[in-house]
């Protein structure tokens, strides 16, 4: 739990840095282009709670839970989602 508390103090944390089972709230999706729109429309908007459920057996991609469903993103895409 200490790690989770520290995390709130660290600016610039992203979804790829979550540990399994840890939850955080979205601040923004960085960058521009299709991915920002797609992630936004899948529910990654400011204030949304997202939990890391699992890491795929080969280390990538990641499985997240948000808005009542599960979604898989690669680390590279998850790193675009800033959290607090």
């Amino acid at each position, binding site marked *: 739990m200490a790690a989770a508390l520290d995390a709130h103090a660290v600016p610039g944390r992203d979804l790829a840095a979550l540990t399994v089972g840890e939850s955080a709230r979205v601040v923004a999706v960085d960058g*521009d282009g299709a991915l920002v729109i797609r992630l936004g429309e899948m529910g990654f*908007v400011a204030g949304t709670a997202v939990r890391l459920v699992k890491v795929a057996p080969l*280390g990538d991609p990641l499985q997240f839970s948000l*808005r009542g469903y599960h979604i898989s*993103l690669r680390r590279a895409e998850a790193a675009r989602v800033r959290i607090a």
Partner: protein
Amino acid sequence: MSAQAPKTSRLVALAGNPNVGKTSLFNLLTHSRHRVGNYAGVTVERLEGDVAAEFTPAVPITIVDLPGCYSLTTTSSDEAVAHDLLVGAAGRTAAAIVVVVDATNLSRNLYFVLQLRELGTPMVVALNMSDAARSLGMPADPDRLAAALGVPVVATSGRSGDGLPALVAAIAALPETCAPSLVAVPAGTDDTRHISAQVLAEALAALGGDDARSRWLVCTAVATAGEVPGATAAEQSALETLGPHRMGRAATALIALRYAEVDRVLGGVRGDDGGAARRDDDAPALAASDRIDAVLTHRLWGLLAFGLVMGLVFTAVFTGAQPFMDAIEAAMGWLSASIADALGPGLLTDLVTEGIIAGAGNVIVFVPQIAMLFLFLGMLEDTGYLARAAFLMDRLMSRLGLHGRAFIPLLSAYACAVPSILGTRAISSFKDRLVTILMIPYMSCSARLPIYSLVIGALFVTDADTVGANVQRAGILLGMYVLSTCSALAVGFVAKRTLLRSPTPPLVLELPPYRLPRLRNTALTVYDRTMDFVRNAGTIIVAMTIVLWALLSFPRDATGAGGEGPTDIGASYAGRAAQTLEPGLAPIGQDWRMGIGIIGSFAAREVLVGTLGLVYGMEAQDDDPVPLREAIRADVDPQTGAPRHTPLSGLALMVFFVYACQCMSTLAVTRRETGSWGWTVFMFVSMTSIAYLAALLVFQGGRALGFG
């Protein structure tokens, strides 16, 4: 499959997110009687059907099934199709929308509903899986949802069919027109969100006012980095003036406003049913799936289970289809023999038996494999496992620059390229789909096995059944499979970085709840895809079979085709061509006899065995190649007395067949799936060139090293 829709029928678009049971509802409403709809400029085929009479619709209703999508913002061809059909850019405009939502996952599904509501098209919400939502302790009351959304809501079940008559009645009762309902853009600049809202308001004003069109332009312009398909010159110049930074902020603000409205609507619907006690990153609908995933996406068990499932799919396509294929071949053989008996020997008999019936056989023989692959793909998709398969394999496929969804088509290509190429439709990016299609024919399919075994048996290993001989046989065979696999991966790697350069597609993949498969839906898909192959690729395959037959039979006075004895195909046009081309075949260690075999086996690789039998004057069919092996082994050059075929020339021949696109059916489905002769010709020319060069390298390199 059925007659055209009545002229007066009302065109209703069936929309919804993927995995919400939309297809089940479509099949129930139309009694599974559907046809391919005709829409201008729509590249992805859409099915449409009339609402069945048992629902006694007050007016005739035709339903068009839109691609499942999460939004109308155009990020792939699926959303483009949905958008075009809804706004009338495809020639016909939907008069109403039925949007199917998953009651167990409203907080994401309602986003799409709000976006559709902006269009101002009369709309009904089908609240599907409401029984499942109730048993999960998250009941959604249709009346409250209807009040909060301002559109009619009907609870439905795609499993039991409950609620369908009410849904049809609600569609019939919809008004002709309805006012668009836009999520309001707040005024004011008092916090960061509102500053973005102001940017949004300015962008919408610059695009001609706040309506569904302007809102679609804002998001699509950001998604496509500027160039919006179908935008007018005025719209395009407004987008350019606004610039990517402000557009990005406007789009983000719009999406956030819609989701804020989703939360407001849900707050009114859930009431005091205990939803407040739930953590908002919980997914109750996935609680059971999580327990299954504890095994199926487990670090060790998950990979083992994946191997098992893939083994099952592969065995089904590779060997499970075999008895059916044998039966088809036997039936075709019987048909040919009966017709030959009835007509007596003659050219017409040959045309019918060796051209038309053989051609039809070449088409139908693929049906079992296609049906098997789509049966498994359909069930895996329905259960939700296909998404897990992509989740497990994405790491490997993304190294190549491809999506995890490309894995299964590539794997099944070891059995047969034809169903595999048809199976690439699950890959949404056209470029990536094309890369996968170009890779597939390099995988060593089952039709290459008879060639490997003929050559290995004739030139490498005697027919002795000793352990040593079997190990040597297996070693050479394994070498061919390793070569083909590495080549396919290399082709993908190169194509993705040169001709078809595009970034690795992002993985934004929903992992839906596991559900029992709907055999009825899967069976319909299997039927549609198989018939599509027979109708579209079949014509090309039959035509090419007849052309090949003619090349191997004419000129008739020289070959004696249609006469009593075996056809002397050495004297045919194909035979003469092979003899003319012999100077080109010698450097790869082959003579004109193999040249005819190569030409003849363009029908299908395994035909090489039968064609060579004819070359060596054997009337016998390709059932027993032992005499053929002996004939090849014993074939010597009369002048020098040296054997014409050596282990080295045999190796060159096998390598040639690893690479050469000796399969007209593969080319026919490539033409069908890419919609382009250009890519089809590219596939054939590049594969044949690589095959020749590789065989040349093997034969000349081997000779330089002192072999053969």
